[in-house]
């Protein structure tokens, strides 16, 4: 392997440039721009070029030489036929630029409008998915043999049973932290016993459902989007369609129903773990006995709060699964789209959960609060 070399020879007619050695990507000295500049400088006063001593010339080498010539053939050129044909291929290159503008900065108003339209499009998609779900339910009510029980139970197991340990742990820890911090404050007012009211209402009504929703959105929602997304990338959804299996009945409906059934159960489970954590902490911190805590809890927390928590669970589970499936079906067949859709799915479902939670808070403001 010999390096690319440039020589100049003084001849009768003027200066002649001799190129020799290997003019390839691997052997040309780096950086190529300075090699090209040197070649151009030397060649400026030259009358003739001799490329015959070159042993190897690849397309990168040919491009360097062609650019050094200023993109036109020199007056006198000696070159082997092979290398000449390579140079001719380089001459024929037409670099087609991508039409610019798609990434150009847009005025704020246009950007805002586009975002609004995109949001509207997603909303319409969700509504369509919901409508399809209702139609599927009506169809399955008439054809009970077609109900996808296996998919349903698989989803209940994956999103519910396997989530039990982590939801219990999170609930228990949040209960302990909340109880400990509240006790410090309540003690200064001598209102120790109100710890039960505080923990009961906040955990059962608010924290349990929202905590579980955030956990499930991150845990099951992302998994659903990624699963449907990969099935789209690998054309498995199309394969299902050709076998006459409805994707909404077999993929979307079982997920949505399973999460709508599982979430309220997880909410009850997580709230219970949170109350146990709060109870343990109250006992250690303030010496409140377990019997007193349980007895007071049933008196100060109206049972309506439990129903509100369960209701939120159903709504959140339904929304998380619906959003996850919607974004899964919107994945385009590339890896970048898969990752961005999964992110969007989780972010959207958590945001929607918080929004719906606010709506719940307004609608139920007169329910379940003891005076």
């Amino acid at each position: 392997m010999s390096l690319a070399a440039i020589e100049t020879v003084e001849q009768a007619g003027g200066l002649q440039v001799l190129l020799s050695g290997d003019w390839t990507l691997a052997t040309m000295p780096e950086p190529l721009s300075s090699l090209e500049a040197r070649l151009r400088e030397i060649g400026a006063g030259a009358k003739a070029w001799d490329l015959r001593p070159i042993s190897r010339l690849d397309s990168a080498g040919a491009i360097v030489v062609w650019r050094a010539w200023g993109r036109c053939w020199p007056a006198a050129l000696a070159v082997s036929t092979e290398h000449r044909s390579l140079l001719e291929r380089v001459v024929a290159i037409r670099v087609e630029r991508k039409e610019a503008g798609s990434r150009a900065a847009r005025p704020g108003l246009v950007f805002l409008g586009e975002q609004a339209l995109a949001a509207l499009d997603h909303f319409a998609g969700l509504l369509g998915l919901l409508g399809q779900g209702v139609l599927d339910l009506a169809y399955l009510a008439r054809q009970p043999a077609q109900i996808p029980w296996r998919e349903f139970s698989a989803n209940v197991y994956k999103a519910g049973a396997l989530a039990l340990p982590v939801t219990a742990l999170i609930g228990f820890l949040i209960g302990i932290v909340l109880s400990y911090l509240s006790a410090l404050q309540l003690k200064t007012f001598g209102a120790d016993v109100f710890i039960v009211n505080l923990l009961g209402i906040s955990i059962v009504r608010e924290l349990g459902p929202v905590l579980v929703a955030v956990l499930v959105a991150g845990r099951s929602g992302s998994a659903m989007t990624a699963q449907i997304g990969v099935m789209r990338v690998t054309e498995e959804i199309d394969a299902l369609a050709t076998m006459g299996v409805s994707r909404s009945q077999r993929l979307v409906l079982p997920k949505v129903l399973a999460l709508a059934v599982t979430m309220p159960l997880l909410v009850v489970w997580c709230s219970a773990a949170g109350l146990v954590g709060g109870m343990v902490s109250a006992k250690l911190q303030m010496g409140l006995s377990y019997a007193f805590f349980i007895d007071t809890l049933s008196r100060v927390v109206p049972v309506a709060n439990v129903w509100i928590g369960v209701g939120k669970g159903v709504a959140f589970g339904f929304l998380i699964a619906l959003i996850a499936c919607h974004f899964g079906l919107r994945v385009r067949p590339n890896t970048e789209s898969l990752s961005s859709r999964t992110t969007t799915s989780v972010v959207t479902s958590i945001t929607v959960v918080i929004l719906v939670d606010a709506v719940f808070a307004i609608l139920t403001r007169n329910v379940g609060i003891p005076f």
Partner: protein
Amino acid sequence: MNALASGGHAPGPVIEIRNLSTRFGDIVVHQDIDLELERGQVLGLVGGSGSGKTTLLREIVGLLRPSAGTVRLFGQPVLDPDPARQRTLRRRFGMLFQQGALFSALSVYDNIAFPLRELRTLDEAMIGELVMLKLAMVELEARHAWLMPAELSGGMTKRVALARALSLEPELLVLDEPTAGLDPDRSESFVRLIRMLQMALGFTVVMVTHDPETLGGLATRFAVLADQRIVALGSAADVLAVDHPFIRNFFGSGRAAAAIGKAAA
């Protein structure tokens, strides 16, 4: 064949495999395989299903470490412990994967430009010209450069993958089932394209294939993998002279015999 192939290189085989063995748990895939390939040759690696052809190919390019034995490319061990040397070595060969393995998030242009950008010594204008040249080489048009891999047909995917494999002007091209999934017409034109490029650029080729037409159209040397070892190696005539059940089956069929016979003639 020309100055390109012979020009100023260190002599010695491009691929040199010594006493290579591969085991997955209790399953022995290869036992004491020796293989050499000289510069400018086109080796066709054939063997039954599950005979470890693709495994051997992955060991040649260093994606898989053999249980025993060594693989040398251009006289250097392919699994060099020094990362810089290994990177330099890996830039000297290109691989065409069975499914193309194009980066799905990048356009055709960016896929071909990717290895060039990784060199970090080329300016964007130079990269643009090289990409367009490679596209023209694999007989694609400039307007195809802005398509995404998902928008390509099977034949175009293979061509783009070939352009990407050739973007660093490799001295060795490794092909895994180059014509699998193409219809006979496209498969034939793809084989013709590879042969034309091989003649023009003079690179060495090692390929795995099931297709007798591909094998007959491209290979100048054949290696038959069976019973965990290479049972026959050499020109078409050499291989046909070996008496082995797989060779009788594979080369005995009319289609294969015709295709290989053409190569032998």
